[in-house]
């Protein structure tokens, strides 16, 4: 069975159902599909939007590297990674990872692995837009994101 690998960096919104179909239609060997969707939060009403900046070219290349690692490591049958950029409003989708495998554990682990590496290695940066009109700050990287990534290395 040939591998389905789909990577996209785009401003436009995406449809998780379309990605599910891409990875499962006619794929009778697929036993599990796991999808993770990340949304823009308003942080209790404090934010009016997030501005997502990316490094064109490298963002796609890095997602491709992470995706290929995940496919090899977890024997995934299909993997789709879509990340948006630009101004994104609270409630809107930012990122979608869809992973298929023969069994559920590989699909869960594959999606989790991609997200952990995407957060720390894919060149995207978030800037906050404040609802009260004051100057927004760049989001700071979190140590727990590094720890989440490092657990895959230690195992």
């Amino acid at each position, binding site marked *: 069975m040939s591998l389905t690998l789909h990577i996209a960096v785009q401003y436009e919104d995406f449809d998780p159902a379309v990605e599910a179909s891409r990875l499962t239609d006619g794929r009778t060997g697929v036993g599990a599909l796991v999808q993770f969707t990340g949304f823009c939060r308003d942080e209790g009403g404090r934010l009016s939007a997030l501005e997502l900046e990316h490094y064109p070219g490298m963002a796609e290349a890095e997602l491709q590297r992470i995706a290929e690692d995940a496919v090899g490591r977890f024997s995934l049958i299909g993997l789709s990674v879509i990340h948006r950029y630009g101004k994104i409003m609270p409630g809107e989708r930012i990122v979608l990872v869809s992973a298929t495998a023969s069994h559920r554990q590989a699909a869960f682990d594959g999606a989790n692995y991609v*997200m952990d590496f995407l957060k720390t290695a*894919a*060149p*995207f*940066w978030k800037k906050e837009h404040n609802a009260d009109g004051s100057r927004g700050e760049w989001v700071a990287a979190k140590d727990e994101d590094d720890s989440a990534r490092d657990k895959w290395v230690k195992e």
Partner: protein
Amino acid sequence: MSVKLVYFAWVREKIGKGEEELDLPGDVTTVAELLAYLKTLGEEYDEALKFPEAIRVALNQEHAHHSEKIAGVREIGIFPPMTGG
């Protein structure tokens, strides 16, 4: 050596431009030496790169350690730790 530098997020904002082409002195051979050299180019560079250990660098769009050599590299990306997802 002439190289294209591209800046992102608060590094871009503090330096005040998204990219530039620079001729580097011959004694700038590693990523760490490049960051130290850029800090001498002006207050805005010094401010953006004040804590070089916190700065991430990509050589030809691949992540690189500060000890890596930059000879022959066409494009160097300089940016803060990533916060996507």
